[in-house]
């Protein structure tokens, strides 16, 4: 799937479901099959990183890397490094929101 197809909603949804980190990988700039798909991907991710950081979710939990289809070794390395990075950051703060229980309790 083209990295331009990675809607910010997908990333937001992943975090909401409790993902501790989200890695978006796309083809290198200039290598896009659709010519400019990755240009929009980088803009979206850059803005979203700033935004989640402002909301208290570390921007390091969202990573965009250019990994071509032939770069299997890079994919493995980036995934390893990012996993370690996210592990050092600990669980996502979204997991500790007690909002459902709180809201239900308020209604009762």
């Amino acid at each position, binding site marked *: 799937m083209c990295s331009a197809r990675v809607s910010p909603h997908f990333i937001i949804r992943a975090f909401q479901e409790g993902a501790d980190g989200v890695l978006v990988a796309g083809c290198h700039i200039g290598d896009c099959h659709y*010519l400019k798909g990755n240009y929009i991907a980088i*803009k979206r991710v850059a803005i979203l990183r700033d935004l989640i950081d402002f*909301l208290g979710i570390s921007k390091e939990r969202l990573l965009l890397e250019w990994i071509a289809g032939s770069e299997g070794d890079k994919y493995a390395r980036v995934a390893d490094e990012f996993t370690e990075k996210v592990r050092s950051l600990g669980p996502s703060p979204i997991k500790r929101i007690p*909002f459902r229980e709180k809201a239900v309790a308020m209604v009762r």
Partner: protein
Amino acid sequence: MEALKNKVNELLESGGIAGFLGLRNFGSEPFPFLFTRDTAAEVEKITTGAVRYPLSKILIRIAAVYPDAIFGIMCRACDERAIIELFKNTKLRSDKVITIGISCTDDLVQACKCENPQPSNLVSGEAGKKEFDRSDVQKIASMTLEQRFDFWTEQLGKCIKCYGCRNICPVCFCDVCTLEDQPLVKRGEIPPELPSFHLTRAYHMAGRCVDCGLCEEACPVDIPLRTLYRRVRESVKELLDYLPGEERDKVPPIQVLGDGLFEIRD
């Protein structure tokens, strides 16, 4: 006010505009009103009002019904910024809209902490002084991640999902709204999922928010929404060098795939 009345009368009489969208006093309360040649007598009751109203949002609807007519619209500096973004998003046509600028009172400028209270085509009043203050953004940016998260969880947790922020937003114009998309936002859940509901809306403000602050004014539970969207506005300026509403000839960077080279930076 006389200058505004004269200008509206002049434009209506000369046929320069088919109608003027402004505010008219009903009793002591100002309400939006479309002044046309048939209702020219009402121009006497025209007012600028002490409060703001997203007239551009109403104009989108009127312009959709009368695509060939030229309309005048009363606009403050923030309205003008919104109208510029609406031109770029093809919701209004720049050759079909005549903006008639009015100045804001000093009280209003101060209350809004307006970054630029001066509309370009000023017809009524004098241009106010800037009262820009971004201490709200700085205050939150200086907190630790954990403090920020707790702050926003508490604030956004107050949300009653009234959609007031979206409904009043002059640059929210989609026919189908993501925030009403069933797979993304569950119905009947209050507060909405934290923080995805507001994160989604904040993302949609990227490259669009003109920092008018109507969202925060409309919010019945006083969520500091303007601070959130202001940060998005600043991000877009920092990352992509685009300030919505200020740059008439620049293409919004989020709406094009783009050119030039991009490096991933931290």
